């Protein structure tokens, strides 16, 4: 068993990065996630593992430092919160278009604009549909506990390198600021130069030895036929992710007549809500998408053929609900998909969710 600690989600992100052999972090302070960089700076991993940590002059610079650092084939990450991720979106598009692996963490706060510093899930569209320009996808992981904040750092890097694609941990201020018991992973050494050359030598900017072609990291291609071919290659990669990587958790879905779909913080609230509803005799389950992209479409489609309806519960005006509706539609068993959400930094309460369930499905 690994070391047990009581830690904030944000602190765990930093600790997990050091322990999984991350090579570098570049970031810019923004509430509610500044503890990530603060923890790293206090831990001084450059003394311990050689990990580089740098406070950039802006989110724009930070993501472009990530773009440069990721091109070297090393494991690098940044973290920010909603307005900062908007600033980074151009860079994220370049990283996706250049097929570079890296980890981007969004500890969401309420928007739009400067919004609030309280937790929100209103960046779902930005994370799973694009945010930056062009046809690209991020691998998006949604932790629902401090333990998963720990576990998903390593998982995100694994997936990012498997697909040479940026991965995002989409969390929010609640999980970032909350403390829970966490079992920390054991230390994994950073890759040696030989390991890096073996894994990434065919594309990374390691310096061109005599006899190999130059490695050029770019998203630019003036010949649109070639650019179309590049895009098709990306799309094949995304289809493979959709086939192999969807992850979810189903709670009490086996006998359920209704299923709540929720991720991250709102899924925790809904877990309590289904307990309360079941105590009242309502047969309700919870489907918690762990990967938001690729979305667990098949699991939703299968459920739709044996339940009476879905309730999407989000800390937004209703974004994931579109993916649930698409999944139901593609599955062919059309059932109602309803929505309940709180906006602007408010977390729904379990009681409100139960009420929404009753109002949508059990009245009349």
């Amino acid at each position: 068993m690994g070391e047990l600690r009581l830690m904030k989600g944000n602190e765990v992100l930093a600790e997990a990065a050091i322990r999984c052999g991350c090579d570098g972090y570049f970031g810019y302070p923004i509430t509610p996630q500044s503890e990530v960089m603060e923890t790293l700076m206090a831990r001084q991993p450059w003394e311990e593992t050689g990990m580089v940590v740098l406070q950039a002059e802006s989110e724009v610079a930070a993501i472009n430092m990530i773009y440069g650092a990721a091109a070297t084939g090393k494991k690098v990450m940044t973290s920010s919160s909603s307005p900062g991720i908007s600033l980074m979106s151009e860079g994220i598009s370049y990283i996706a278009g250049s097929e570079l692996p890296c980890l981007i963490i969004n500890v969401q706060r309420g928007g739009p604009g400067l919004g609030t510093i309280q937790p929100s899930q209103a960046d779902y569209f930005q994370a799973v549909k694009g945010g930056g320009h062009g046809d690209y996808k991020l691998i998006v992981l949604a932790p629902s506990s401090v333990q998963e904040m720990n576990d998903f750092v390593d998982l995100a890097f694994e997936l990012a390198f498997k697909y040479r694609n940026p991965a995002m941990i989409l969390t929010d201020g609640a999980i970032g600021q909350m403390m829970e018991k966490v079992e920390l992973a054991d230390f994994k050494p950073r890759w040696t130069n030989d390991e890096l050359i073996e894994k990434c030598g065919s594309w990374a900017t390691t310096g061109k030895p005599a006899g190999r072609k130059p490695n050029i990291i770019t998203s630019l291609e003036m010949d649109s036929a070639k650019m179309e071919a590049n895009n098709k290659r990306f799309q094949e990669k995304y289809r493979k992710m959709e086939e192999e990587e969807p992850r979810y958790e189903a709670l009490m879905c086996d006998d359920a007549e209704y299923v709540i779909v929720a991720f991250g913080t709102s899924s925790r609230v809904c877990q309590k809500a289904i307990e309360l509803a079941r105590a009242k005799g309502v047969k309700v389950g919870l489907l918690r998408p762990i990967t938001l992209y690729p979305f667990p479409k098949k699991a939703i489609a299968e459920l739709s053929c044996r339940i009476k309806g879905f309730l999407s519960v989000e800390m937004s005006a209703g974004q994931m609900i579109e993916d649930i509706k698409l999944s139901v539609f593609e599955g062919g068993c059309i059932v109602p998909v309803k929505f309940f959400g709180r906006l602007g930094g408010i977390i729904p309460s379990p009681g409100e969710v139960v009420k929404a369930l009753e109002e949508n499905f059990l009245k009349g």
Partner: protein
Amino acid sequence: MDIKDIIKPENLVYKKSELLIDTIMHYCPGCSHGVVHKILSEVIDEMGIQEKTIGIAPVGCAVFAYNYIDIDWQEAAHGRAPAVATGVVRLNPDNIVFAYQGDGDLASIGTAEIIHACNRGENIVVIFINNGIYGMTGGQMAPTTLVGQVTSTTPAGRNVDLNGYPMKITELIAQLPGTSYVTRQSVQTAAAVRKCKRSIKKAFQNVIDKKGTSFVEVVSTCNAGWKMTPVGANKWMEENMFPFYPLGDMKDSDKKEVSNN
């Protein structure tokens, strides 16, 4: 005497650097970029640092620089080359990283990145091509466009009331303690090319010696954007650009020791 009798190794007086890739450049005839590329190839070749050098290409006319010099490259977003170079050199401090940028890239959209990279003393070379105009997008006003200079967005000439003043960014950079070598050069004559090459070589040597940021501005021509002949553009540059952007070293501090690591 046949031509074959002349093409012999012992008669060779000039040979292109092996690092300059044998391809047709997209630059307009008369453009300064090609000359600076040639200098860079020669310097990297002569210093024997091909295996360690990473180039960061800008957005602008030099966006395809990576097609011309036989090293590993990365193409940056507009203005962000110094941040990208920071990412590379922080992770691999023994690599020799240079950012190659134009005036729109460096002095307009990328002002924050260049100022902060230089202020941190990132151990990189910055090559700054200043031709006072946006070449690639069709000759619009740049931050370095001279007062009264006609461009496609200042058809009546740059008017300071409307457009502000031309920016001497290199003078600004020289104030920053993170920089060890800041110079302004040109490449319009053989003598200027030789002098510019010495500057670029010194900048690379500084990076090898981990002295922080070395910054080389090259006052350049854009005869296509300026709507002049190549010869006319050189003359216009000497008469108009050099008085405002005087050539020479602004800073050469061999005393400063910088370590980022």
